[in-house]
């Protein structure tokens, strides 16, 4: 595994998952490519392995067999970052782990895995095209997601160009936080852009995502102004206690409307499915025990969004 951004001049992307048969991220049956690295750190993030922009070790303790039988990982680690703790559980000194993956290679039970691999455009396209028959029959295609895919702008641009030249439908899911230049290059290459707007209050935004929303909102306005023909779907993850008030949703809907609208405005209920992955990464999940919004509440909020002129989406 090489930490190169390019190999033989071909852009490579740092990818943590390619997921087939996705049914909820664009039209038809889709293949999702998840890129690693994100400038935001949302408290509710369901793909925490997508945050760091380098390969990371993930440890699934229930898979680890006991130390009587196996110490292969400890034996192979040159940095000596793996040890048994007092309870006989494997520990990682993450500060000194370089994510080389040697331990994961020898681990018999996949208790240790490396999240993140550098993959070239051609290889990604090859994997996406394995599902040609399904894309063709369903009107599906490729959806690039993350992490924040536009943080790897050159790679995404090359990937979308390759996909388009081969007749693959393309979609991008973005937090909207990137250089305008990247957004400008990507916009004409995507058949659809899913643009997250999490909340309009800049202070609250910074508090829950770690960054201000100024650049995001600015990018959205420019995207609508300069590429009015691009199909943009706005999405808001509805997180209880963060942005689930009627005012929050109304403010976003009105902002979108003022900026030139969107082809759909989707509200996605928060879910806690990502929590186990925090444990695997040795991270703390701040929203443990947060209850997802009820179906009734989501319906109310969707009603409010619709009353502000935002076209709803039947997809959710």
């Amino acid at each position, binding site marked *: 595994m090489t930490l190169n951004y390019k190999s033989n001049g071909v852009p490579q992307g740092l*990818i*943590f*998952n*390619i*997921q*087939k*048969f*996705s*049914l*909820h*991220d664009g039209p*038809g*049956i889709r293949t*999702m490519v*998840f890129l690693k690295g994100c400038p935001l750190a949302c408290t509710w993030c*369901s*793909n925490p*392995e*997508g945050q760091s922009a380098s390969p990371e070790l*993930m440890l699934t303790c229930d*898979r680890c*067999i*006991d130390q009587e*039988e*196996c110490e*292969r990982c400890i034996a192979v680690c040159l940095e000596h970052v793996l040890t048994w703790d007092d309870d006989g559980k494997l520990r990682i000194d993450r500060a000194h782990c370089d994510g080389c993956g040697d331990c994961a290679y*020898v681990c*018999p*039970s*996949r208790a240790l*895995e*490396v*999240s993140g*691999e550098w*993959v070239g455009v051609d290889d990604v396209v090859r*994997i996406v095209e*394995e*599902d040609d*028959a*399904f894309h*063709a*029959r*369903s*009107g*599906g295609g490729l959806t690039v997601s993350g992490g924040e895919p536009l943080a790897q702008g050159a790679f995404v641009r090359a990937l979308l160009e390759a996909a388009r030249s081969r007749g693959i439908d393309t979609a991008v899911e973005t937090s909207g936080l990137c250089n305008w230049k990247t957004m400008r290059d990507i916009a004409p290459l995507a058949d659809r852009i899913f643009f997250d707007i999490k909340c309009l209050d800049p202070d609250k935004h910074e508090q829950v995502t770690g960054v201000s929303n100024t650049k995001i909102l600015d990018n959205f306005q420019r995207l609508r102004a300069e590429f009015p023909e691009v199909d943009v779907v706005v999405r808001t993850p509805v997180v209880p206690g963060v942005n689930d008030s009627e005012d929050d949703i109304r403010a976003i809907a009105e902002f979108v409307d003022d900026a030139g609208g969107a082809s759909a405005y989707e509200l*996605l*209920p928060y*879910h806690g*499915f*990502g929590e186990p*992955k925090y444990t695997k990464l040795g991270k703390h999940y701040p929203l443990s025990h947060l209850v*997802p919004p009820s*179906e009734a509440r989501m319906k109310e909020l969707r009603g409010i969004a619709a009353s502000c002129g935002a076209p709803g989406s*039947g*997809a*959710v």
Partner: protein
Amino acid sequence: MLGAVESSQTSPGSRVLTPHEARIERGEPIGLVGDAAQSKRARIQRMLEGFRDEPIHLNIDRALLLTESMKATQGQPMVLRWGKALAHILTHHPIHIEDEELLVGSAGPPGRYAVVYCELVGPGRFYTHPHELEPSKSGDPILITEQDVATLKDEILPYWESNAYHAATMNALPEETRRLMERIFVVTPTASGRSMLAWAHDYGKVLERGIGSIRREAAERLEALDPVDTAAYVEQRPFLEAVRLVCDAMIAFAHRYAELARSMAADERREERRRELLEIADICERVPEHPARTFHEAVQSQWLVQTVSRLEQAIGGVVGNGRIDQYLYPYYRKDVAEGRLTDDEALVLLESIWIGMARSTDVYAKPGMPSLTDGFAHWEATTIGGLTPDGRDASNELSYLILRSKREFPLHYPDLAARIHARTPNAFLHAISETIKDGSGFPKLFCDDEIIPLLVAKGGSMEEANDYCITGCSETKMLNTEGIATGCAWINLGAILEMTLRNGRMGCYGDGLVGISTGDPRTFTSFDELWDAFTLQVQNVVQHTFIQQYVSDTLKSQYIASPMFSMLHDLCMASCKDIHSGPIDGALYLGFFDVMGFGTVIDSLAAIRALVFDEKKVTMHELLDALDHDFEGHEAVRQLCLNAPKYGNNDPTVDHIGRDIEECFARLARQHTTAFGGELDLRYVSVTSHVPLGAVVGATPDGRKAREPLSESISPSQGMDVKGPTATLMSISSTKCAQYKERAARLLNMKLSPASLVGEAGTRKLMALIRAACDMKMWHIQFNIINRDTLLAAQKDPDKYRNLLVRVAGYSAYFVDLTPALQNEIIRRTEHEF
């Protein structure tokens, strides 16, 4: 590496229930679905009340009458003896008409029943030896009385003990072949478990011509037999006499029902029922003797033919319904056009057939024996859709009506099969997808674009191939083209792998040689050496399988004949030969052998190649040691095995092993010819046998523990296809050797979570998935749309979930009726959730 880590999705997370699950959660009693159906088909609703609580009675009347007749005809030509026996049965078998019934005819006593086919003594049937017969205990699913046992032991079985087809097929085997067959579940012959493989009749012929016309044909040809042509006179006369006898008996059988209906009408006080009984009498006087004129007559005629078929012989999986939406359609259309029939009235008649089928139970394994077809499965496969003989889309209003019945009728009959092709209308596919989404596992799907070219390659005409129907769980038949298919052998691929790893031996059969000696794998220095040993074991097993089949085929006609079946087959009538006797002019003989444990063995070979030879993470010595100890004390090795590359994830290196295995079998199949000049094709349909077959196989290098089930049919190992359904389908497609015509069914079960198919958008995506699967030319695919939680809850509280249907393998069954091993196996199948 990619995709090793799950990522979260934006899909709705709340638990979504299918309509079928929701009805069970609400504790609804069994009945038609929806108020409209319940009120408009109140008769069916009443007939369904308490259906699941009725005990299953043995029908030994048929066995008694058959034995009586066979004793009296000793020495006569076999086809004539069976003709006389069937006539004797039809004349004397008790008959009844149940209250509410519009459709009459039953192969058993009132309520639910199981026919005893005494001519098929042997393993696989419900007893193996008379001394094992016992009256049933309370709680047993089948009611066997002391009187039943006494009659069987005293009057029936002694005759068949000395006239048993099964014993003959085993005694006639060469020594080496018998030794292999006697090791239970290595190669399992099934020839003597049923008199023939799944089939349907040409019902359309009966509806159009009537039995009377067939009788006239037989009589005229008897008249025309020229004694100067001695051979024809001697060979053909018994057949034609048997046909004439059977036609007369069938007509008289219908007339017995007419008479009974009239006498019941005379005593009937309810005016409406009296009128119904008189109508039944009129219809049974008319059909099946004469051509049907109305939908009601057509359905009654079909059902009487089916009933007589059940009394004649045990067709494997029970006789199918053929292309019911085709041969019934002219009668439906005419009645509807002339205002005689509403859709609800048509449904009542169709659902009367379904109830009639559900009342009959196929008893195979006796209680306590390893269950080969769990849940007392039988498959009256009922085909809808597909192409017309001249290659146009065949779906019609009746096809949609039958799908509607499938959504509203609560029992797991009929076993509905839909044929799909490139030009299947979207509307039909939509109705199919909505029916699948209801969640009880119907219909199963067959891809015309795969099957028709194969049937043509095997020798069918375009017209016949276009008109094929489904029989059994996943077979196909060209009804007037194919000759008999004797029950096929099941080859335990897991056992072959074990023989390869143990130099011809198997752990559960001690030190004696089971297969052939192919060397100690510890001495092998490359994967190729192991592969060569494996193919030699395969070759040995396949050779003996063909020998066993040859013996079974050639002995059959000395024991069994089926004149009713034969008279409905064009080629049998043309040559005046019973279907069970020797090669029939113009008939195609397309049998098959099943290979069980495909996924298990692909994964095992892939693991050995990766771990022992490529990555060298374990030595062959360590691996075999771990297998010998069932991985006890070798957890690290087991984990390596479990995490080695697996079939079902579109990994070309793994899938290629599957392709090599298929090619190895297909090449051997091409080299051999059967007794009647036909072929035995490679098929992957395990039904539920992968559970008992797994019980003789030790631990395998895919990480499977000893005695656990093998992988099922063509499906990847349970829970090992983790990259979603498209990758699963791609892998299955990659293992196919399309250059061979010596291929038959590949049965695929796919489990999808209800949440992934919510709403109209979900239906459209299921339609796209099915279209793509057909583009990839999957022979067969069926879906379980069910939540894992529901299955777990059903194990804990079987009473509440008594009516929960699940797709097993080519059929649906009540989950709580399955053995715990099979329940667990179904739970472990991968649920694709998105």
